[in-house]
């Protein structure tokens, strides 16, 4: 035996249909007149006329990547490959290299000789930013990748990434770095390592 379904209670005016239709028409007509004849305020129209108008992005919008710079302009990246490992789209390509002889960083850190992000394959998940231990890669630029006709235009290399500014114009990171030799340096440096 089937379960009896209770019919919704309907008032006389609802059953008579026409009053309800009139109500509906009044609603749609009020929208129509408001939107058509209040040109100055655009009425309640929610559409953003895209190329001419742009929606303001939220503060934490993940835009095109940038590589943050140190004080001397070199990348903060230490080529640890954390980001390229974390990247689910596998769109980060890094070739690490040693700093040259005489550079105080030699032996402590590597640097990325090649650092390329394929912005077409990127899904803008932000995992690379999460993974980076050095605050070297960020997505706080607020720009989305401008369109281009060739795929190569979407391969951003180290030089480009280093120059892309954050939304506030900075190419650095507000987080301080702790260089070997600083008393805030958390790791083992040459003096204490017993080398």
């Amino acid at each position, binding site marked *: 035996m089937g379960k009896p379904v209770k019919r919704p209670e309907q008032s006389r005016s609802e059953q008579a249909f026409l009053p309800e239709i009139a109500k*509906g*028409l009044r609603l749609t007509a009020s929208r*129509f007149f408001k939107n*058509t004849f209040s040109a100055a305020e655009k009425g309640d*129209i*929610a*559409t953003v006329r895209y190329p001419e108008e742009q929606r303001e992005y939220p503060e934490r919008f993940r835009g095109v990547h940038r590589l943050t710079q140190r004080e001397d302009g070199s990348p903060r990246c230490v080529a640890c490959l954390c980001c390229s490992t974390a990247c689910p789209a596998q769109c980060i390509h890094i070739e690490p290299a040693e700093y040259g002889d005489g550079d105080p960083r030699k032996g402590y850190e590597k640097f990325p000789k090649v650092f390329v992000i394929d912005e077409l394959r990127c899904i803008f998940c932000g995992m690379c930013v999460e993974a980076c231990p050095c605050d070297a890669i960020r997505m706080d630029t607020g720009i989305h990748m401008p369109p281009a006709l060739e795929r190569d235009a979407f391969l951003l290399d180290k030089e480009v990434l280093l120059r892309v500014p954050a939304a506030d114009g900075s190419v650095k990171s507000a987080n301080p770095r702790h260089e070997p030799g600083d008393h805030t340096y958390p790791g083992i440096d040459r003096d204490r390592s017993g080398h």
Partner: protein
Amino acid sequence: MSASLSVGQALMTAAGKSTFILGLVFAIAPLLVWAERRQSAMIQDRVGPHRASIRLFGREWRFLGLLHPFADSLKMVWKEDFVPPGADKILHAFAPWISLAPALLGLAIIPFGPAIYFEHLGDTLMLSPEGVPCVAGLASGVLGCTAAASQLGTELQVATLDAGILVFFAAGGLGVVGAALGGYASNNKYSLLGGMRAAGQMVSYEVTLGLTLVGPLLVFGTLRPEEMVRWQSSSIFTWGFVLQPLAFVLYFVAAMAETKRVPFDVPEGESELVGGYFTEYSGMKFGMFFFAEYVEVIGLAAIAATFFFGGWQIPLLTDAGFVVGQLHLPLSHGWVTALRVGGFVVKVLALIWLQLMVRWSLPRFRYDQIMRLCWRYLLPLSLVNIVITFLVIVWLRS
């Protein structure tokens, strides 16, 4: 027609009138596509199409998106005309015509203006005490007839027929054939089902449609649309929608169902029937079905204006100009005629606007609900309307 009008002249005026009404339809129909899209956008807080542009005098002109219908029609003309394998090629090609032609034919009986006297465009005309139009002038200080109109006027109506409104119904009845044939000839079960639904719906609603107009016919006592409009001349209180409000509502519902548009659009349904009877149509053949739908919308509005809103009558405007109590603003016959034709067009546009409002306000009915609405509510109500109208008329006469 007076004998002085030769056959050649008669043909000329008929051609002119047909050109006017066809021009009106062919102008309004693309406008309707635009209005439909923009109006729905306004109702739904969107902007609607407004990007199609044309480069003129070194500037881009968008004309509020009015170019979109033209772009659309160009697209339709150039699209491939696909005939499905196994389709009945001849019927498949004919169905859109059979849909469109009756819709246009129905418009022939619509009076879009009063009788026009080409010789007297500059004169002020009025009705003589005997009810014959004459040239008005000040005879001994009183406005009166000074000369008889030199000849009979030309009705601004393509076909002045005794059968009048019956022609409209007959033409409307043919529209069913187009839809059903389109569905049958496509060799596609969705098309066939859609065609059958369209036929069932249209045949049912035609009964109601005819009966709802019997009430006004009883009131006006004539089948000729031009006579009906004259009947409604004395004031706004003799307009059809005041005397026959129920008939107006019933007619509007039934006629909307005849046009097969939302909320009565079951002949097509993406989730169940794909595109209904025009699933297998493309290019301009589809365009003709599409066009026929809009012509029907215009026809519905024109008939409603004629029956219920005084046709080309404008309140307070008489043959001799505006008359408010003792005040009299004389206008020449040419101006009066132009105003009246304009008034008719405005009424038609307003009724079309109302149809579009309904179309974008209501969800669609189920097929059984459509049939129930027709046979169990609209039809009995229209019969009740006829009986009441009949009794009132008999009571008033006795």
